């Protein structure tokens, strides 16, 4: 899709995607700041959901607390906005009680990886069929800009005025090591790639983790002297990443300091609700009506 941008004067009339089936009436504008990447991520998700062709009621969106975690409030699904860091625990209960729901967790780098780190690794371990979208903006946006477990060393935040010394997690590496069976990275800038990844994640049976590079111009941008929201997208999301497909053909020095985009890991392994169903059978039980 990106390539469309360079073709000049291609004036066929495409129909813009209609979000109205997915956005709750009267809930826009959302609370996100001007230029906040969360809205772009949300739109990619909605298009991905549309592609599945499944009815809205088949989906549950669960979140914790944070700017990113405000996602569920705007969309027309079964939506649950919970406690900081605990989205996955709530989602686990919901998914086990209603295995046919497709549960998508929209969470932030703080929500998923700071306070919520334990639920993150355990959900991955179980390989429970949940899509985990980490809106990774390298900062705690909601509480006005403290460093997070993905903030890079040296960066400024309200609690790292001298430059951050905490090393960051590699979300994808962690997810894979913990047991997730679908691991990918996308960015808000690469909205189309992200949409495709999210579609695959939804179709995947098992825990799918997507590390989504995203931007908080209000805090991370301002503190770290990015000129604008677009500047952040350009530098962090576009120039800071390279797609797995391109990576093979690039010389090593071009890859340095860049994060890989795309599906990084994708394996089949028994999924938890399926395993549980077998357990029930073994115990002689059957799902009641």
């Amino acid at each position, binding site marked *: 899709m990106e390539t469309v941008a360079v073709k000049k004067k291609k004036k066929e009339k495409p129909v813009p995607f209609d979000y109205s089936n997915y956005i*709750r009436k009267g*809930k826009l504008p959302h609370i996100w700041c001007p230029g906040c990447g969360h809205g772009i991520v949300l739109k990619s998700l909605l298009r991905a959901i549309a592609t599945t062709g499944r009815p*809205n*009621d*088949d989906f*549950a969106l*669960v979140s914790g*607390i944070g700017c990113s975690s405000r996602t*569920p*409030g705007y969309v*027309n*699904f*079964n*939506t*649950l*906005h*919970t*406690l900081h860091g*605990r989205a*996955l*625990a*709530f*989602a*686990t*209960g*919901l*998914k*086990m*009680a*209603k295995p*046919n*729901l497709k549960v998508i967790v929209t969470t932030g780098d703080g929500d998923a990886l700071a306070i919520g780190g*334990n*639920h993150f690794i*355990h959900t991955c371990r179980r390989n429970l069929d949940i899509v985990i979208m980490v809106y990774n903006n390298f900062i705690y946006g909601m509480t006005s800009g403290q460093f997070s477990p993905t903030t890079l060393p040296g960066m400024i935040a309200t609690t790292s005025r001298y430059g951050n010394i905490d090393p960051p997690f590699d979300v994808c590496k962690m997810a894979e090591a913990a047991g997730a069976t679908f691991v990918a990275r996308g960015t808000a800038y690469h909205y189309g790639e992200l949409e495709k990844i999210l579609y695959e994640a939804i179709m995947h049976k098992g825990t799918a983790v997507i590390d989504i590079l995203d931007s908080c111009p209000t805090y991370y941008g301002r503190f770290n002297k990015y000129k604008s929201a677009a500047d952040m997208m350009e530098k962090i999301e576009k120039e800071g990443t390279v797609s797995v497909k391109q990576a093979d053909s690039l010389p090593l020095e071009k890859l340095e300091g860049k994060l890989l985009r795309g599906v990084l890991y994708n394996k089949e392994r028994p999924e938890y609700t399926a395993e*549980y169903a077998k*357990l*029930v059978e*073994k*115990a*002689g*039980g*059957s*799902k*009641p009506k």
Partner: protein
Amino acid sequence: MADKKKKFMQGNEACSEGALYAGCMFYAGYPITPSTEVAEMLSVRLPKIGGVFMQMEDEIASVCAIIGASLGGAKSLTATSGPGFSLMQEGLGFACIAEIPCVIVNVMRSGPSTGFPTGPSQSDVMQAKWGTHGDHPSVVLTPATVQEIFYETVRAFNLAETYRTPVIVLYDEIIGHMREAIALPEPGEIEVIERKKPTCKPEEYKPYAQSNGSIAPLAAYGEGYKFHVTGLYHAEDGFPTNNTKLIGEANERIVNKINKNADKICANEEFYTDDAEIGVVAYGVSSKSAKFAVKEMRKKGVKAGLLRPKTIWPFPDKAVNKLAKQVKAILVPEMNLGQVYYEVERASKGQCEVKGIFKVDTEAIHPNQIIEEIKKFT
């Protein structure tokens, strides 16, 4: 010759039997002494009926999971003890504000912190009311026998569904591990309240609608209603609000739905209180010692009487106040350093002397200790 209807079982087992009787289909928990047997038994029983047993990574996850499951339509339960109960407090508050029915069992051990894990106590009873931040409703049941654990667990589920609120079943290690023969009622023999689900059109569904104090039905996710639930203050439609008036009303409503129905939720056993001149207010294991003591005193002609709350929160203010009017003194034996004692003091309004009998050495209060105190007032 064996009594077919009776089964000899442990308190914790009676709890899981009660849960199953009430229709519990989801358990999530994390092992902790002395509550673990509830989990162990349900891990065997639930799969047999297609229910879910999950051992979570910790207690925080456990309480969150049962709330999630409840939103999926399942009656759900977790069981824990002191340290785990402390960790569940934030989640408990979420269930309160979002009004999601669920049941939490706390089998009290000796604390604070790790304390003496295999020793009993009654020292989480104030925590059960005040443990989470913010003003919130509290419904806490304190059964005192194995049989009663069964009944009160069923009642806990019923109250949770009726009032759309978390309900806590609170008993101590002694009762949790004690064994007695109990009667398991046949299905239908005691009331089981099912969740009220909406019947309106999805577009019209307001999960927090208020019409003169009635409690809105709660849809399950994935059944066509697509509603929103949040731990932020929300309006009738479930969406967050910044309107300070609505915020104030929302907070009052969740607290008042319990407080205003206190008479329906409270349940006391009155034992020789009619003509009592010395009162004892006791719950759980200490009420057993107290009953023993009261019986002994009555044998000796002393007019002692026992008020035993089966619902400790909301607190039976009226019953205590009535007793205070009538007696010289109220004794409050507790396996803690004074908790319900303060409530009795409060509710008595200076009308009689109130004296605590406290014990925290992990041994049950001996009936003689109560007898000695009663004698002082004769």
